[in-house]
């Protein structure tokens, strides 16, 4: 058993000091040691994106990131996104019903939060490119994409693009 090491980092704005084994994954640190269970195990090999968190702002796959690599850095999990109220991205996901089972949702929300912070007004092609990183098995990505586009509009002060179901009688 390797010697434990001391890890100092910030999680959702709070300073943390943890004693960890050097091979501890960032996902296990967050879920098991700290109780941030919003990040999920989907594959444990970096295929699905359900474990995505932000490390110094950038999305990382927590299941294949060593906890030790967070030394001195700042981590944001899904629990740190909503401040009193859900973020615009979260509100759009809610209104578009972009979460069915909800297992992939925290990871995708964090990917979009990171995107919009870096590029406040990305084109649809850029949003599509970025969303290719995460697997959702329920929604066919349709509502995720429409929620992301709606969020981009609202974050930029433009009118909302609410979902508009189509009925045959309207055709």
């Amino acid at each position, binding site marked *: 058993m390797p010697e434990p090491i001391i890890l100092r980092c910030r999680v959702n704005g709070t300073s943390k000091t943890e004693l960890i084994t050097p091979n501890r994954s960032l996902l296990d640190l967050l*879920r098991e040691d700290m109780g*941030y*269970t*919003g*990040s*999920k*195990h*989907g*594959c*444990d*090999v970096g*295929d*699905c994106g*359900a474990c995505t968190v932000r490390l110094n702002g950038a999305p990382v796959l927590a299941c294949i990131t060593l906890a030790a690599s967070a030394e001195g850095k700042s981590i944001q*999990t*899904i*629990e740190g*996104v*909503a401040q009193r109220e*859900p973020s615009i991205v*979260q509100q759009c*996901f*809610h*209104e*578009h*019903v*972009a*979460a*069915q*089972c*909800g*297992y*992939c*949702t*925290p990871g995708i*929300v964090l990917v979009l939060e990171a995107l919009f912070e870096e590029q406040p007004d990305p084109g649809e092609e850029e949003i*599509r490119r970025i*969303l*290719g990183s*995460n*697997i*959702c*098995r*329920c*929604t*066919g*990505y*349709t*509502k*995720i*994409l429409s929620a992301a586009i709606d969020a981009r509009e609202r974050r930029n002060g433009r009118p909302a693009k*609410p*979902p*508009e*179901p*189509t*009925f*045959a*009688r309207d*055709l």
Partner: protein
Amino acid sequence: MSAKGSSAKIDGLDKITGRALFTDDMSRPGMLHGAFLRSPHAHARIVSIDTTPALSMEGVHAVLVGEDLPVNYGVIPVAMDEHALAVGKVRFVGEEVACVAAVDRATAVRAARSIVVEYEVLEAVLSIEDAMNPDKPILHEGRRKASNVLRRVRQRYGDADAGFEAADVILEAEYDYPGSTHVALETQVALAEVTADGLLSLYSSTQIPHYLHRILGRVLQRRMQDIRVIKPHVGAGYGGKSDPFANEICAAALAIQTGRPIKIILDREEVFYAHRGRHRTKMWLKMGITKDGKITAADFKAWAEGGAYASYGVVTAYYFGVFLPLPYVLDNWRFESHRCYTNHPPCGPKRGHGAIQPRFALEQHLDRLALAIGMSPAKLRSINSVQPETETSNGLRITSVALNECIEAVVKASGFEEKMGKLPPNRGIGIAASAYMCGALHAIYASELPQSAVQICADRSGRIAIFSGTADIGQGSNHMLAQIVADTVGIESRDCRVLEADTDFTPVDLGSYSSRVTFFAGNAAVRAAEKLKAAIEQTLCKRWEVDAVRFEGGQIHGGMNAEGEPIVASFAQAVEWAEQEHGTLGFTGYYTPPKIGSRFRRQSVGPSPAYSFTAQVAEVEVDPETGIVKVLDVWCAHDCGKALNPIIVEGQLEGCVYMGVGEAILEDHNFTGPMSRRGPLHKSASILEYKIPTLHETPNIHSILVESMDKEGPRGAKEAGEGPQLPTVPAIANAIFDAVGVRMETAPFTPDLVLTAIERKARRDAKEAR
């Protein structure tokens, strides 16, 4: 409420903010972790198992082997051929042989690997041909007939031979549909604990809390009232969590044995071996048609490779036939299906269970026949559609049908008639249609008991508590229940709380399978809510001395008083007055499907109280150099009866089309062959290798909702969670034919298959030209 009656789900924000608890998010003080030792052989007799190396490891609390859980089980009572841990024999690579409980997962995994098992390796049965060969070894000894065929079904309706006589065109072809698996992002996980009062609680990622409850009682030989099954949030199922699993039974047994809580989670690779997905199926279809497009006869044979255990396989064998003709009228036909045992992981139900394979064959066949008689494939489908309020040749009672509206909608929205045969080279468009059930008339455990029940309680706080045994696995059944109850009494859905899937507190519902929940539990909720409404109505009419009241916007309205002022009370106030008059307000509603007589007594698998209908058009682009198929657009029109919550229904359509696209172009649940050195291993037991579509492989999906207002559905509703997947694969196959002129009789349409077909066609064309 937002656009057109849609509302966001009551549990949406919990999921989006990471608060929703899934089973793996839960833990208990002193909790142990479990891990399995699995079989490295496809077929072998267990000679001996030595667990002492594991038991002597520090941190190991207990080890279970097959003999510790000797009672057989299975989800279908007529085919209970499973044990949580192999007894006597192993029948597939990956089968559970022993289970270790230890202080942490890593120790449990290490300990499981240290167990020594001596096997006597047997010849493996690895294909449909092997399974049908009487000279091959038998997987399950002791069955009435020594055979690897779990079930053969043969049915005939009308006179198929006379039907073929009446045909102008007769066509025969073979089709081969691949196996595929669910890949729900949450893997199977169970947490068991026994409290000091002797109650065993099992939290699990299950679609079937009630059947799990029964099976735990049977296998553990424990009274059902001493077992509590709870389903927390589930990271989806698509049919993959519809069986009792070894991790659930072993967690329960180990919690009893050790007195400690225990969690057993499967890793991703283990889920690929747990499987219970789509059956690889070989099919042969012969159909006849008149030159004006009337289908006159069909003859169908199907052989399904089922893997090592029965699961729902008996049902699969029947569904192949029941869902072959629907959504069309077919009076003269016969079918024969075989569901076989092989030494692969067991198959089971996946979205569109038993209907996906026959649709793949029949919808491509219809396109060929349309071409042969020079008729639009859309029109051919329309003129053969079943009609409302009729009975099919195989005794299915048909009520609401809006198939032709679905076909018209997708044809119009896609420009199908203008595009077919006229798109630029290598672009193509195709159509397909389908029907699916809204739950089964006959329960798995035959009885006349309610198949779904809902209890509701209202009190002076103004909120309504809803208790239901249903299993929300992401499809939104909790919201459906809340919305039905809320709409009935004119309040917001978020003022309803749903407690679901806790066998100690919620009335029985049979589970989330066969697209039954909205129809069955929805009807139960309507009935409970109407009773509550009637009680409040009675109190207010008496108090206000009016004949009628109206429930709207969180208030009850009683018209105007003598002074011309509105008579109105808040919902909470109205409930308080009703509580004063009636006492505590609690009501139940239940649903038992109607007794529908059939001419065919044996027809107990397949009939449903109602059927949904779907039409789809797919547009594709095929790269003739690489064989890569890009699905560009799919238009999906679905007759869901009534869209209770349009945006949630749309989400189901989109999810179905997506899953169909994966099965069409990417997914193949396949194994290395008998010659492979390490036995039949899964060829792609990871999300990356198995290749499920990302956003980049997903087409633009255009959903169109069609409402037929089913007279027995809750507020007119029918299913939307499975039926819309049925036409996707054949619509894409038909589009590929339109694009490059090749018939894809085998799926998935991978680049190598498509390229081979294109090259074969080029050689054929060249030969004909000479």
